[in-house]
């Protein structure tokens, strides 16, 4: 492991800093003997992001480490830098020949973190820049959501079970709701968020990835490109022709004001540090999408995400249609239609709701839940998303990384909304609607779904 940055560390001071960081953040305590062994493999190289000589020195250093530690020229470059540095770094890695995979079988891979651009055009530009130097198969675009245990479990749930696939379509499913709710506010990321907003920060990547996983066709193999081909087809089936009228009807953007979350008073978005007092950045977005293919035509997908909502929760809820005929007219309550909820965090699990007879005289029908919880069912702790993903990148498994064409397809859905919103005049529907911190977003978001005779789930 070699750290490369401008700061003047030595191997020793860098190791010492790493030891403190690992002790602070690891989910397991450090075992001193193991750490000593591991730390011997941590190195530091001081260098600038834009100076070609520095990269040549980096290449020499990597060769020496290869020779000393027998790493056979396998290299994984992880860019934990601001996105603006991606371009120069990639270019210089290329100039120094560090993108080349060696004859003896050593591989070279590069991991980049989101955001992958801030709109369709910049997303394409970034892809071009990276792909001028690296081949697509060498590029690992990391979206840590995809490394979460329960996100990976969506695939197992759908394609490891035989009984759900036959009903996973427009014939049986009424609609799907995807919620990514956060209770946190800016936590010192105000200046970043001013540029991003909920649409770019969460919707463009995490939420559209969840949508793809739920809506995709079975892949021909559990293999990176087969999976990503199917995910891409879902994104391409979402109608990207946004008109101002359609955005006004199907998208609600919001921004939180002050309020109470979890028993604590919190400031409004415009009062957060590094946020403009007249900011129009969205901290909430709700929208209605349709996936126009044979499986999903006319099944609406309702997506919502926001900050300073009442609780932190991520889930996908598949709402099935009502039975064609309600036979039990004597029942005092109409049972709710069947529901399948895949909860991603916290309290990971799977819930199935169905109707059952109340055990007494007469025939009263009520909804009951079968609620499987991971936390209390498996004693082994799930690894952190990054642990999973970095291991996958080292093993060359790109299944859970986003491909260039996926990124562009996602921007293709999101960019037009952002452009129309940015061009809207004050007071227009497309502007951000204020909502009180600690509530489920602006009322307009309720109207968005109630218009179709449906309701957001209470989570």
């Amino acid at each position: 492991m070699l750290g490369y940055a401008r700061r003047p560390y030595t191997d020793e001071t860098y190791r010492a800093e790493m030891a403190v960081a690992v002790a602070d953040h690891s989910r397991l305590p450090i075992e001193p003997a193991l750490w000593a062994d591991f730390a011997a493999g941590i190195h530091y190289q001081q260098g600038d992001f834009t100076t070609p000589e520095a990269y040549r020195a980096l290449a020499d250093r990597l060769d020496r480490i290869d020779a000393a530690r027998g790493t056979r020229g396998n290299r994984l470059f992880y860019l934990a830098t601001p996105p603006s540095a991606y371009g120069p770094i990639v270019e210089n890695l290329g100039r120094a020949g560090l993108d080349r995979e060696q004859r003896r079988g050593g591989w070279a891979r590069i991991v980049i973190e989101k955001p992958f651009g801030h709109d369709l055009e910049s997303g394409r530009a970034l892809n071009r820049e990276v792909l001028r130097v690296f081949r697509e198969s060498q590029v690992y675009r990391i979206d840590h959501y995809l490394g979460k245990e329960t996100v990976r479990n969506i695939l197992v749930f759908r394609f490891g079970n035989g009984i759900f696939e036959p009903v996973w379509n427009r014939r049986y499913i009424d609609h799907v709701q995807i919620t990514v709710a956060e209770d946190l506010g800016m936590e010192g990321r105000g200046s970043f968020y001013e540029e991003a907003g909920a649409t770019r920060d969460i919707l463009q990547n995490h939420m559209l990835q969840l949508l793809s996983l739920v809506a995709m066709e079975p892949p021909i193999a559990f293999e990176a490109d087969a999976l990503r081909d199917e995910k891409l087809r879902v994104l391409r089936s979402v109608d990207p022709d946004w008109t101002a009228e359609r955005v006004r009807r199907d998208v609600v953007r919001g921004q939180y004001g002050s309020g109470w979350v979890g028993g604590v008073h919190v400031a409004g978005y415009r009062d957060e540090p590094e946020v403009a007092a007249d900011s129009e950045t969205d901290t909430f977005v709700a929208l209605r999408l349709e996936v126009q293919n044979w499986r999903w035509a006319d099944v609406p997908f309702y997506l919502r995400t926001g900050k300073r909502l009442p609780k932190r929760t991520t889930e996908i809820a598949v709402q099935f249609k009502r039975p064609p005929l309600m036979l039990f007219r004597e029942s005092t309550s109409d049972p709710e239609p069947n529901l399948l909820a895949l909860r991603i965090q916290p309290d990971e699990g799977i819930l199935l709701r169905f109707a059952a007879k109340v055990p007494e005289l007469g025939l009263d029908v009520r909804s009951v839940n079968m609620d499987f919880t991971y936390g209390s069912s498996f004693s082994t702790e799930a690894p952190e998303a990054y642990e999973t993903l970095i291991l996958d990148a080292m093993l060359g498994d790109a299944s859970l990384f986003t491909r260039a064409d996926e990124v562009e397809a996602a921007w293709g859905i999101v960019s037009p909304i952002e452009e129309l919103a940015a061009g809207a005049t004050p007071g227009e529907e497309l502007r951000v609607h204020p909502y009180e911190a600690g509530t489920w977003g602006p009322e307009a978001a309720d109207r968005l779904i109630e218009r179709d005779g449906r309701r957001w789930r209470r989570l």
Partner: protein
Amino acid sequence: MGGEPITMVAGARRWTARATSVPGIEAELSRIWSAAARESHEAHLSARARALALGDPHLAGRLDVAGDVGVRMRTSVLTLVAVAPRPETSERALDAINTLATRHPSRALVLSPGDPGGPSWIDAGISAQCRIAGRSGAETCTEQIVVRTGGEIEQHLAGLVQPLLIHDLPVVLWWLDDPPIGRHRFGDLLAICDRLLVDSGSFGDDGGAHLAGLAEVYAAGRPVVHDIGWMRLTLWRELLAGLFEHPLLAPELPAARTLRIDVLRTPSSRRSCRPRARCASTSCARATRCA
């Protein structure tokens, strides 16, 4: 986050913890349930390990991997939110919750707001318990979270409660004192619950005004209002209705507009009462308030 480690109470499957924030409560609950999972997993393994893999670490290791998962389903059927500012009412709520635990396993939140003028603080005692139900032998697990708060939080209890509701289960709000109908803090809580439980039998001075307010909540259709006082009068109501089943009185019923009930206090007990009509003494003793 929570201060003390989880402690398991010997002899019963019961765990307790403390926390001083809502995220702390959530973290402690999840720690408790993973500790519970580990325990049952270890118990499961040791039985098999004794039989099959004693002294063979390789085989034991394989068993660990291949061991069946002791899948646990949530057994709670509701989230009960009891608001009880006074210590005696909060004790009463906990007693009732414990009595109902096996028949109606729940996550019970008992909120005791105090000292609204001081700084804001939260102090929560968390306990979880698993019991084997008598006949079926199935295990039911319940959670109790007693949250004492200070400061302005009292006005924003809905925000405190929401992160702690179990998804997809009905939420019952039990207001142990006079419900502050029309107040912001009450309205916020009503908006997130499915049922409201009050006891008109224990309303203070102006019970009539409270009942009128509740009638409005009831008319709005949500949440459904249940009155323990009204349930307590079930026997009386049945008794009165029963009078009109008599062939002589039944024809009078359609014409009846008002019904006067005279109540006699007996010298033996100030709280018991009986109408002039025939009355079994046991049913009289159950009615604590008469109109």
